[in-house]
């Protein structure tokens, strides 16, 4: 899954692409500022974050029970549940379900889990035509691209490029100017006809409630409502880590997610369905529960918190590394800080092994994460794991020492903050002496040589944040 040469090579190419950089910089800064404002409005934000963390931690610690409850509740509500140990199994299950309907096409809502397992290609190989219905996903699908950002996957394309693409690829684009409104209108007309005739829809899920069997999709455009309402058959592919024990857990997640993600008090549309509703919506509902490496991550007592992620993308937007390289350099459907800890674990460190070094450990991702995933600690832990495996037990002394130092630094908050400030000072030096990068051994050297080091901020994010709060 990682491009040839791993993150360092891909990052070198991306850093050189100025269009991508300009778009990313504008985008990440715009979202970052809006998110901070949306969060500042909530007096009990820190309590909600802690509640979110606890809900996810406990859901993971008793995942077997919650999954069993979920299965029973979905079946009781008229749905069917399928278990997929890996991506190939999930693709086969979905393919069989679509084939059983007699339809050769399906409409689809953006879903990272299905991107991860390559569902669209697998279905295409069986002659099933899958149409992505999120505007950005449609753009990427028409262009043959992959996503560069969890939340705004076509952030690497500007409006002129999108207009050209639509004129070339849509059956009847009509007169089309470059305004986003006109471009969105063209997509609406094209997709409307496909929604009305669709027999099958495929979706992901933001969560599923174990005690009621209720599945939820959080979205903005309305294509999620279309897909979960109009077709006769709905197939939802969901990673097993998305289960929430109780309905009341939604009251926390539906506050944390929209503000962290799109910086809104609430996203335009959230659909919650419980099995099959007589006389309303699909007559058949299938929930495919996907492992595909999640149990690898679950096995690791430090790393398992990567499974708490609710895919808000806040950590991407504050990450200085992501801002410079964009999403494609990570070679994974999960880019940015969360990708750096999730991707290697999903593959049991088989791929993406350089990703834990794709970070300056500045800690900004931890500060914004709505479920308080301690990404820096997991990064350091995974670096240790990668080094341990690569050295086959006989670790290089210098590396061992550096890991120990990092472990010590992360052992307490004060020490962590001090280490951050030290790292900042070191960065300032490095920025002036780029050649120094080549002297650093191992994956870190490769990373620093492509970094085109930014002028470091005058204070750490944490300092700045604490200074801003009343």
């Amino acid at each position: 899954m990682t491009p040839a040469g791993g993150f360092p090579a891909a990052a070198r190419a991306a850093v050189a692409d100025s269009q991508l950089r300009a778009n990313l910089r504008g985008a990440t800064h715009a979202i970052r500022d809006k998110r901070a404002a949306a969060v500042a409005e909530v007096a009990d934000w820190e309590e909600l974050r802690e509640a979110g963390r606890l809900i996810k931690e406990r859901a993971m610690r008793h995942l077997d029970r919650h999954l069993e409850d979920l299965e029973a509740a979905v079946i009781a509500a008229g749905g069917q549940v399928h278990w997929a140990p890996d991506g190939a199994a999930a693709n086969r299950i979905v393919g069989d379900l679509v084939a059983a309907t007699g339809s050769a096409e399906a409409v689809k809502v953006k879903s990272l889990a299905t991107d991860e397992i390559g569902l669209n290609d697998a279905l295409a190989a069986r002659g099933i035509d899958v149409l992505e219905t999120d505007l950005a996903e449609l753009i990427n699908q028409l262009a043959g691209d992959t996503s560069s950002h969890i939340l705004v996957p076509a952030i690497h394309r500007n409006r002129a490029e999108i207009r050209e693409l639509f004129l070339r690829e849509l059956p009847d684009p009509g007169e089309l100017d470059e305004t986003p409104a006109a471009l969105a209108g063209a997509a609406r007309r094209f997709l409307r006809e496909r929604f009305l005739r669709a027999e099958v829809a495929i979706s992901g899920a933001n969560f599923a409630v174990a005690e009621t069997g209720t599945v939820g999709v959080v979205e903005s455009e309305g294509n999620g409502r279309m897909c979960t309402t109009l077709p006769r058959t709905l197939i939802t592919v969901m990673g097993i880590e998305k289960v929430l024990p109780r309905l009341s857990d939604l009251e926390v997640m539906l506050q944390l997610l929209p503000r962290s993600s799109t910086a809104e008090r609430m996203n335009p549309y959230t659909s919650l369905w419980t099995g099959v509703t007589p006389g309303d919506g699909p007559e058949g509902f299938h929930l495919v529960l996907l492992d595909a490496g999640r149990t690898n991550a679950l096995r690791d007592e430090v790393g398992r918190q990567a499974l708490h992620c609710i895919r808000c993308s806040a950590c991407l937007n504050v990450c200085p590394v992501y801002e410079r390289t964009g999403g494609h350099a990570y070679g994974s459907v999960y880019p940015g800080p969360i990708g750096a800890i999730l991707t290697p674990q999903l593959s049991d460190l088989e791929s993406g092994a350089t990703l834990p070094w794709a970070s300056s450990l500045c800690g900004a991702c931890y500060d914004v994460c709505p479920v308080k995933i301690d990404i820096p600690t997991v990064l350091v832990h995974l670096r240790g794991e990668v080094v341990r495996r690569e050295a086959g037990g006989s670790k290089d002394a210098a590396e061992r020492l550096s890991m120990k130092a990092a472990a010590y630094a992360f052992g307490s908050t004060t020490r962590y903050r001090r280490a951050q400030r030290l790292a900042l000072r070191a960065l300032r030096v490095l920025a002036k002496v780029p050649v120094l990068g080549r002297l650093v051994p191992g994956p870190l050297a490769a990373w620093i040589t492509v970094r085109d080091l930014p002028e470091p901020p005058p204070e750490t994010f944490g300092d700045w944040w604490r200074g801003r709060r009343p």
Partner: protein
Amino acid sequence: MVLGRVRAAIADVPAGEVLAFDRDGAEAEARYERGGTLDVAARLALFVERAGDYQAEVTVCADEGAAIAAAVGAACARHATRRVVVPDGLDRAWVPDAIEPVADDPPLAWPDLAACDGVLSGCELAIAVTGTVILATGPAQGRRAATLLPDLHVCVVRSHQIVETVPEAIARLATPIAARRAITLISGPSATSDIELKRVEGVHGPRRLELIVAAPGP
């Protein structure tokens, strides 16, 4: 097989550990606000302000048939809307003379629903803090497709249906969810920011949302 792997992966977790996060339990640092503090009037004012922030058109009127019908009529007129889907169970006094009501009974085919100019519905409840209206399959709200395919959605919210916070709303959804009614939370008209982060209103759902908030007179 998947469950077996899950059990093996969490073998470190002690048996008998408390299962769910209990908000009212031991964790003081996780004790977020559940209930609201506003009185009825302030709650109503907050809802109107927040729903308006999303570019939903909000009209406040008296909670009586004629006043609601007048507000609905004005909303439809703003969008030159004539043929309007009216779900079963909706108070007929809310339907103005100027529109042509279309019943979704027997159920209309999708293209016929999409060919209607608008839909008039009630709601299950509304959230003041987020400016959200919540629909649930059933009387006065119809099935989901009816409030999705027409281009204009006129939704009547009665002031007693407005709760202040998200937790209050989720608590009230337990009953309709137990009855397997499908739930839709709507906060403004559909939108995308996928092209250069410029917000565009109205992609796939109704492009216009008109909220009629009916409140008892002073």
